[in-house]
């Protein structure tokens, strides 16, 4: 559970983030090259508190190097070469026309003594460089997009999962944010150990990757949650295996309790206890 001081700081951060006025959208950005559907590009990307519902905690600071960035927050596990969890806010203002980063990058923000995973660690491993915060979700600017290409935002995912049900769930969240005017608070990470990439002992391959999503109307946060009907919580846990590329995301729905039991992390701890207990036991 967060300390009283941490709660106060988080509340202040949330207030500051939520106090900015919503900008008016610019004209739709046409893409004459593709003719694809166009979306509004907002004058500012409004990032609310990335850990609005609590910083996930497993009760031990060991192998939890927590970093807060403009675009997301994460806890890095130096022993496993990947994130324990990545947590981020997602809404319609985060999408734009910024180009996709050309490359993946080692995260030089990690402390000395912590191995900085590089893209080449994944090469010829049979596993994809799987984004936690999706590239498309940070396209308001090139710099914001680049933050999703730091290797601290990446876990090894079999391409059948990364390009299959994981991708379909990402598209579902994009639809919620852009077309259904929702405010999302997302947490994602991995569970288990299938060995390491190229047997090099640097990057652990998770057995599953999971995602927990709190869904609220656009502009809302913890302060707006007064009952279980104020929000929805979706949790998924997908196996990191071949042969699932054509599967939909919904067959991997689970409970937050299931993910908590497997990861040993406490999620959504800032929700009022009754609401937390209710939603963490439900399958959406």
């Amino acid at each position, binding site marked *: 559970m967060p300390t009283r001081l941490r709660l106060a700081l988080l509340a202040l951060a949330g207030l500051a983030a939520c106090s900015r006025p919503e900008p008016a959208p610019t004209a739709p950005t046409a893409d004459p090259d*593709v003719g694809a559907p166009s979306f509004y590009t907002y004058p500012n990307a409004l990032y609310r508190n990335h850990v609005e519902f609590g910083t996930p905690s497993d009760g031990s600071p060991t192998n939890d190097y927590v970093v807060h960035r403009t675009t997301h927050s994460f806890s890095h596990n130096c022993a496993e070469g990947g994130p324990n969890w990545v947590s981020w806010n997602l809404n319609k203002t985060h999408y734009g026309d910024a180009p996709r980063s*050309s490359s*993946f990058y*080692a995260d030089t923000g990690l402390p000395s003594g912590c191995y900085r995973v590089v*893209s*080449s660690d994944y090469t010829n491993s049979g596993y994809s460089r*799987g984004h936690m915060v*999706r*590239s498309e979700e940070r396209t308001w600017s090139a710099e914001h997009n680049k933050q999703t290409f730091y290797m601290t935002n990446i876990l090894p995912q079999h391409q059948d999962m990364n390009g299959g049900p994981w991708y379909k769930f990402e598209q579902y969240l994009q639809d919620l944010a852009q077309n259904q005017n929702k405010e999302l608070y997302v947490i994602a990470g991995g569970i288990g150990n299938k060995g390491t990439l190229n047997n090099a002992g640097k990057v652990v391959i998770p057995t599953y990757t999971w995602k927990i999503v709190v869904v609220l109307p656009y502009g809302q946060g913890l302060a707006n949650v007064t009952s279980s009907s104020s929000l929805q919580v979706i949790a998924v846990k997908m196996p990191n295996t071949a042969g699932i590329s054509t599967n939909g995301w919904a067959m991997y729905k689970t409970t937050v309790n299931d993910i908590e039991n497997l990861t040993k992390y406490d999620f959504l701890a800032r929700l009022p206890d009754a609401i937390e207990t209710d939603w963490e036991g439900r399958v959406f």
Partner: protein
Amino acid sequence: MADLRARLLAASAGLLYLSEGESPFTWCEAPWPAGRAVDPGGVAGAFGEADYARTMRVEDFLAGHTTASDPEDDAAQALRPRYDALVAVINASLEAPAVYLFGDVAKRCYIVGLAGDHIVGLRTVAFET
């Protein structure tokens, strides 16, 4: 044509195009109507493609291996001169070279330009979710 094919394959031998996954470079060629400028629709027709995604400059498509490669990644830096050379060979060998991408998650990428009455070059795959 055989010389051109050998030149491009030699320049790309053993190299991979890295995205979320990685894919080798393979040769591709198709007849091209005389006098027609290269355009996405023509490339799609020549190679039996659909679901056009976008067109990129060769330099931008390979920037992740060259100008934008990670300075912290020693293996990537060791290979950078070969990717620089690949860009140079493509630009020197083909008329109006560009990269045409088709598809959604596993995008088929044609690094192609004109050579006489054919459109030729290298094909690879970019995994983007």
